[in-house]
């Protein structure tokens, strides 16, 4: 198993249940906030990326609800809730 399994493939192994809304959002007007760049580094699922314009974007599919982005970036730039009851990742092993 020396070849590296891509993050997408790894996340594809998990059980995720869809939510009716995005549980994490970048607060409007904060897309260029420097603090968001931290999320690109720390997110275990690699869900944050900076686009060509320097705006940080998030795609919540594959979120492990670990909380790392909230702690690294802070509540001023992220609107962060847990997914609705019964939605989101459901760990079988944990």
């Amino acid at each position, binding site marked *: *198993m*020396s070849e*590296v*399994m891509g*993050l997408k493939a*790894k*996340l594809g*192994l*998990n059980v995720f*249940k869809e939510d009716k809304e995005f549980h994490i959002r970048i607060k409007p007007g904060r897309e260029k906030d420097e603090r968001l760049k*931290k999320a*690109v*580094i*720390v*997110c*275990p*699922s*690699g869900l944050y990326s900076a686009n060509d314009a320097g705006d940080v974007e998030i795609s919540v599919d594959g979120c*492990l*609800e*670990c*909380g*790392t982005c*909230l*702690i*690294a970036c*802070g509540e001023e730039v992220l609107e962060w809730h*847990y*997914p*609705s*009851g*019964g939605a*989101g*990742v*459901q*760990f*079988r*092993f*944990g």
Partner: protein
Amino acid sequence: MEKFDVIIVGGGLAGLSAAYTLAQEGLETLVLERGDYSGAKNVTGGRMYVNPIRDLFPDLWKKAPFERFIAREEVSIMAEERSVTMQYDGNELAQEPYQSFSLLRGKFDKWFAREAERKGAMLVSKARVDDVIMEDGKVVGVRADGDELRADVVIACDGVLSFIAEKAGLRKPLASKNYAVGCKEIIEMDRQLLEDRFNLQGDEGMARLYMGDVTGGSFGGGFLYTNKESLSLGIVVGIDALLENEEAFKAPELLDRFKQRPEIASLIKGGQTAEYSAHVIPEGGVKAMGSLYGSGILVAGDAAGFSMNIGVTVRGMEYAMASGYYAAQAVMAAKARNDFSGASLAEYKKLLDKSFVMEDFNNFKESLDVLDHSRFFTFYPELAGSIMRDLYAVPAGAKDRIFPTIKKHMTVGEIFGIARDMWRLRKI
């Protein structure tokens, strides 16, 4: 309107321990769990130490669905090109009562939830709690999915981010220096292959911690635990340390880099990754803790910050279970007095202070400051590796004498540096 004696937010180990204890004594206890089942949102590195909590739950352990008892402890110090491993085993670890067990939360918590239900606790899953209900400065219940649910006491066991403690005004702001992130893979492996590879008999298991280059020199480490038919392999790294690392590794890259080390690749060969998980870990100790109680509310487990990294042992689950147990004791005492004010519930803190929980946290209150020291993650791993390399090297020509070989690595400056580091360690 429905009213309970106690509402517990979060059906993980703290919440279930509280529920199990309260229901056993006949209190009407409701547990609200946001996952499909208890354990669905929980992540552990992989092992629980049973000794400190064995007597708090005397009937629990016999049927507990642990994976393997840890009969062998290993620590690997990784330098960039080499690693040095120490192993500790023998009768002491292989005899009952066993000190620690590997486990999977998906299995363990699900089972523990059933045990709590058997005692009479009421569990509702797929229920996210959105807010606490406050009246006259007192917590009187919670809002979940639009419903108002009331209780004499709410116990916040909602994990490291604890929005419930925050809403009740008990939590300190989340400062990144007090938290680490763990990323882990479950790697399934044929039981026979696993036992042969790790030299395990029956239910024996091994635990190995990795220090040094695992985290690219940042505060943190790696772990490998053997389960029945899988391995728990992962890394833990301080969030600030990760952000400050000059090589700017992303968290998932660190885990991949760790997996690709030849020392690890050979251990997981033939296994199949079955799940990828991650979680924040509170590591700030006493200094980062907010209030543990308020009027009508208690905070337990990760929500209270009860997790500790002191290098070779990283613990949280025992503290979660013990704090859940003591929260239940405090609630029962408050019920006997029919007084659920902050002053009455303060008994929780007193019980914790007298227990191993706060004793450990007070003893190790400096551990984060002491251990978050780059020399422990770069200099010493390289030093240990280099000494081993030179001791074992047989060159083409004559081999150097042993004393000068070691002395070469230990200049006067280095010896002072080591002495300074030892002095640093006196605090823990």
